[in-house]
Structure formats: structure tokens, C-alpha cells
């Protein structure tokens, strides 16, 4: 029996190995990079091709309460999906109902946080502007997402959606910072640029929803300062695990992305520099850093990333200012309470 289990494990590892080392080159138009690199959200016209009819359950990992839809958009010109966060809650149920009533191929105006992340890379490279195959399921191979959606078919769901993931008594177990950021910080990428395009080659990576504490390292900057059409707020922050207020989990401050008029943004603007927040976030490639790093010669570097802050969680130990000689509490698992 033990031998059978060992053989199964070995076969599972063999099966997973290729996807673990799978690397994909994403080539983006330079104008697109310049257009979105310092923006939180993008408005698109999504040709809805495939979608789930009910949200994911709530638990951990992929059971995140989101609802997926796959489609194509002229503004993106890449394989893509869009996701409504907390899709089982009453305010979002209206959007889900509209989505379910939408026939395949119908175009729906959607605004949301753009996200590039190599979570579902395809076997081949993706070039922005190449023809996009019609997706046959709600989660095709993609690296571009609108996640979370902030406005679906004219319904503003940003404030009601960007809250801790929960429904009734069910709450979501996010990845702890010391595990997720250990992975994010080691991601390698090769970045290059031509006059008209920027290419990023990176391997497959997961760890979507991560729970962590941020300490504001500078003042928030409004994206509308450079682009009046965007409602993003960007700030640099040191990152801590919920159980360790002393030792940051990243070597330098990382950039955080907030959406104006959501609870996370409201709480951010009420914090002074050095203030701390316990948050839920999802990673995305930091295109501002990619643009700054890209040269005509390919550069091997660590994958630049930033965190989209999608919810404020109840205060943890590390969200309070550190006290001298305060012992840490290892191994404690946090859950979000609605």
C-alpha cells in the first residue's frame, strides 16, 4: 500500500514537473504598457464567450468565491478572463444574473483592475495583437486578467466587492505572507524591448490571494495625477507576515495598488506614513518596473511585481506598530471574519 502511494506520488511529481518549469513569453505593445503601467483599472468591451453560472465555493486556494468569465476585448487583444470577487454576495449577484442572461458573443462593458500574472500560461508564446481563439471554457490559458471587476455592465460593484472574502459563516483562508512572498521574491524573468514591443518571459506561478501586513513607506500617489481617467492609488510599502511585526518578508518596499472609493483606499488615505494595515492582496506584474528595466538587450532579472489590495482584514499582531522585544507568535493561522 505504501509502495503504491510512493509510486502515485512519483507519477504525480512527474506529471507536474513540466508545468512547474513551463515558461512563456508574453509580448505586449509598448503603447499598451505605457498606457496602463501606472493605472489601476482599465475599461474594456468584453465579448463574453464562456462563463461559470455560479461562483466558486469559499475555502482556500482556488475556492475563492470568485466567478470566472472568459472572452475577448479589442482593448486587450490577448487571451483573457475577468473575475468578480465575492460573487456570491447580494450586490454582486445582480452582476452574475446579468452575466448568466448574456448570450455567448454579446459585448458587455466591463471595468476592473488589469492583471498580468503567469498563473495559467499557455504552451506557446502570446503576442498582443495576434488573433485570439474563441475560448471554449471559463478559464482558458491566459496571463491577462481583469481581476477584480469594479464595474460590470454599468453596475459599480467596487465598494461592495473589494471586502474580505466570505459568505455567511464561510471565510477564506488566504496564503500566509511568509510562504507567498518567498515565492514572489524568487520569480525570475527575462525582459526585453524593441521600439514597439516589450517582452516578458517567466515561469508558471500561483499564490493568488495572500494575507499580509503593509507599512506605508511613502505617501500615496493618485494615478489621476498623470491620467485623469484612472482611479488608482499607488503607494510603496514594507511587507510583513501577520505573525511577525519585526521582520519584513521582502528586501525592499513593494508597490501597492488601491482603487479609489473602496474600503481599502479609504483606510489607506486615513493612515499616516509609517501606518500599518492588515490586508488581502493579489499579485500582478509591475509594468512600470518592467518598462524601466527593459532594454534592447534581454535582461535577466527578478520578475517585478506589485500587489493589488482587494480587502482590509481585521487587525493582526503585525498590523500594530512593533514593540521592542515583543515575542512573535509563530504558526498562528488567521482567518478573515466578515
Amino acid at each position, binding site marked *: 500500500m505504501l509502495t503504491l502511494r510512493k509510486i502515485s506520488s512519483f507519477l504525480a511529481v512527474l506529471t507536474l514537473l513540466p508545468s512547474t518549469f513551463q515558461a512563456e513569453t508574453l509580448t505586449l505593445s509598448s503603447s499598451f504598457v505605457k498606457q496602463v503601467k501606472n493605472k489601476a483599472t482599465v475599461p474594456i468591451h468584453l465579448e463574453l464567450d464562456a462563463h461559470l453560472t455560479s461562483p466558486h465555493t469559499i475555502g482556500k486556494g482556488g475556492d475563492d468565491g470568485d466567478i470566472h468569465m472568459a472572452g475577448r476585448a479589442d482593448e486587450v487583444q490577448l487571451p483573457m478572463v475577468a473575475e468578480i470577487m465575492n460573487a456570491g454576495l447580494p450586490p454582486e449577484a445582480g452582476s452574475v444574473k446579468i452575466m448568466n442572461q448574456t448570450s455567448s458573443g454579446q459585448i458587455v462593458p466591463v471595468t476592473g483592475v488589469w492583471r498580468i500574472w503567469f498563473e495559467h500560461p499557455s504552451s506557446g508564446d502570446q503576442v*498582443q495583437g495576434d488573433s485570439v481563439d474563441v475560448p471554449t471554457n471559463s478559464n482558458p490559458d491566459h496571463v491577462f486578467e481583469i481581476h477584480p471587476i469594479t464595474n460590470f455592465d454599468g453596475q459599480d460593484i467596487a465598494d461592495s466587492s473589494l471586502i474580505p472574502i466570505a459568505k455567511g459563516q464561510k471565510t477564506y483562508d488566504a496564503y500566509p505572507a511568509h510562504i507567498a512572498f518567498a515565492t514572489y521574491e524568487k520569480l525570475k524573468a527575462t525582459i526585453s524591448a524593441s521600439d514597439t*514591443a516589450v517582452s516578458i518571459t517567466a515561469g508558471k506561478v500561483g499564490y493568488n490571494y495572500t494575507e499580509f501586513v503593509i507599512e506605508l513607506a*511613502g505617501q500615496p*500617489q493618485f494615478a*489621476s495625477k498623470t491620467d485623469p481617467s484612472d482611479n488608482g492609488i*499607488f503607494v*510603496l510599502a514594507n511587507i510583513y507576515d501577520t505573525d511577525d511585526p519585526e521582520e519584513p518578508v521582502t528586501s525592499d518596499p513593494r508597490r501597492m495598488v488601491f482603487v479609489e472609493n473602496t474600503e481599502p483606499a479609504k483606510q489607506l*488615505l486615513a493612515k499616516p506614513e509609517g501606518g500599518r494595515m492588515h490586508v488581502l492582496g493579489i499579485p500582478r506584474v509591475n509594468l512600470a*518596473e518592467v518598462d524601466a528595466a527593459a532594454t534592447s538587450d534581454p535582461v*535577466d532579472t527578478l520578475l517585478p511585481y506589485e500587489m493589488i489590495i482587494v480587502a482590509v482584514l481585521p487587525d493582526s499582531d503585525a498590523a500594530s506598530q512593533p514593540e521592542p522585544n515583543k515575542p512573535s507568535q509563530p504558526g498562528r493561522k488567521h482567518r478573515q471574519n466578515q
Partner: protein
Amino acid sequence: MPNVNGLLNSTVLDLGIGLIFIYLLLAIVCTAINEWFSGALGLRSSNLANAIRQLLDNQQGSGSAQSFLDQFYAHPLISGMMTPGNKHPAYLASRTFATAVMDLVANKQGTIAFSNLEEGINGLPPGDVKTALLALIQNADNSLQKAQKNIEQWFDDTMDRASGWYKSHSQKITIAIAVLLTVATNADTVKIARTLWQSPTVRATLVEKATSETASPQPVVEYPDKNAPLKPHRKVTKDELSKLQLVLGWSEEEWKASDGKAWLERVLGWILTIAAVSLGAPFWFGLLSKLVNIRDAGNKPKTSDEQDKSDKQATPKAA
């Protein structure tokens, strides 16, 4: 028989690449110091404060002895953005500015309508802000949203000018830093060019560094100003700094053996360097990329795979 013209062209090209690489590194260091100064001295904050003063000064507030400017800074939307020690923020969204101004003028609890705004502006004592706001709501077609947009545009226009002042101010600081950096490191263009011409080893080292990718992955950008998350910069690595030491610096011999002619030549070299560094890192980075491409094109033909990839990169359809 060796191709003398080819060798000469290659040497001149490599010398150009080496020189531009030095300018690029010095410009990046200069930018980083400038950003640090701007942050430490709060130049962005004071620039924004000056711009707001220009917009809202010369106006008495309504129903109060306070000036409109003081009322603006006392508004919760604005006072909430002050950092400990009442330090002025470095950035302000046009939407926040317009909302605070409209709220102050309308002076009404709860939701305001266009008529509240119009009455509030008419009720202001005579002053620059009243005149400006009356002009701004004239084209608003009795729409509060349009009035807000016009006020936001008013703020943005002033910020564009403020940005110009800041750039002009920043350029002066950049030149001052370039002067100090050039003299401190004895970055004499004439001497650097001579060293690169005479030493194939130094030339090859700099060209290799300028053209080759970094051996091990590490972040290649940083945020010199923690208050400017929208402006990551390519950073100078220790390795690159060590390359600067090949051609920069003061030696005892240079002090002792310098006569009038040597000093004249040195000052000329410094002036050239200062002018070059003042052009900024992006300029030198673009030029370096072009020269390296020319050099690579002359040295080794691309494989068909590389060519395919390059063609693919160069012709994505516009997003």
C-alpha cells in the same frame, strides 16, 4: 592584409560606447541624488503648496475672517492628507481639490446641487477665486458634474505649469549635482576618451558591460524617492560603479604634474561631461542602445530563430 578602416571604425565605435556608458552611469547617479534631494527637501510638496497658493490666494473666505486658502487647508479632505508635523502632501488629486473647493463654496451639509454652488460663489467676497469660479461655471450648462470637471481642469492646468516650474528647478539642481559629481570624480571627458583610445582592455571591459546582460538575476530598478511610486528608475549596480573607477577619480600624479595647460584641458573635459550628464539618463540610454545594435549588427549575424523573434517583437498589432 588587415582591414585598417574596419579596425579603426570598431575602435571609434567602442570608444563611443564606452564614453556613453560612462555618461549614462553618471546621469543615473545624478538622477538618484537629485531624487534624494527632492525628497529630503520636500521640493515636490513646496511646489504643490506654491501652486495651490497661486490658485486660492487673494480671496477672503465666506462668513469667516479666515482667508479662503486657510479654509481650504482646514477642510477635512485636505487636512487629512497632511503628514505628522503638518507637512504638506506632495500630490493632490484634481478630484479631491475640486470636491474640497466646491464643498467650501457651497457651504451646505449633505449633497449639493448646481444652484448651491452658484449661490455660494456669488456669496463670496470679491476676490480672485470668486472671479475664477464664476468664469468656470459659465460653461457648465447648470451641471454640477461639468462645473466639477471645469474646476478639476483649472487645477490640472495650474499643475501642468507647476510641473514646468518643478522641471526647471530640478534641471538647475541636476546641473549643480553634475558639476559637483564631475569635479569630485574628475570625470574629465578628454581624459576618459584618451584612456579608452589608448587602453584596449579598459575599452573592452566597458563595452562588454554596456552590451552584456547581468549574470545573475536581480532587480534592475528601484524607487529613489519613496513618495514617487509611479517613477521607478533603473539603478546603478556595484559592478557598474566599479567600472566607473577604471576611468574616473583623482591620482596624486594628476595633482602634481598639472600645469596650466593640463588644467585648461581638464576644465574643458569637465564642461563636456557636465553638459553630457545634464542631458539625462534616458537620452544616453537610447543612444547607447542604438550604438550597441550597430556594433552587434556589424559583428555577428542573427540566427534565423533570433531574427524571427526580433521580427515578432517589432511588429505586434497596436493594442
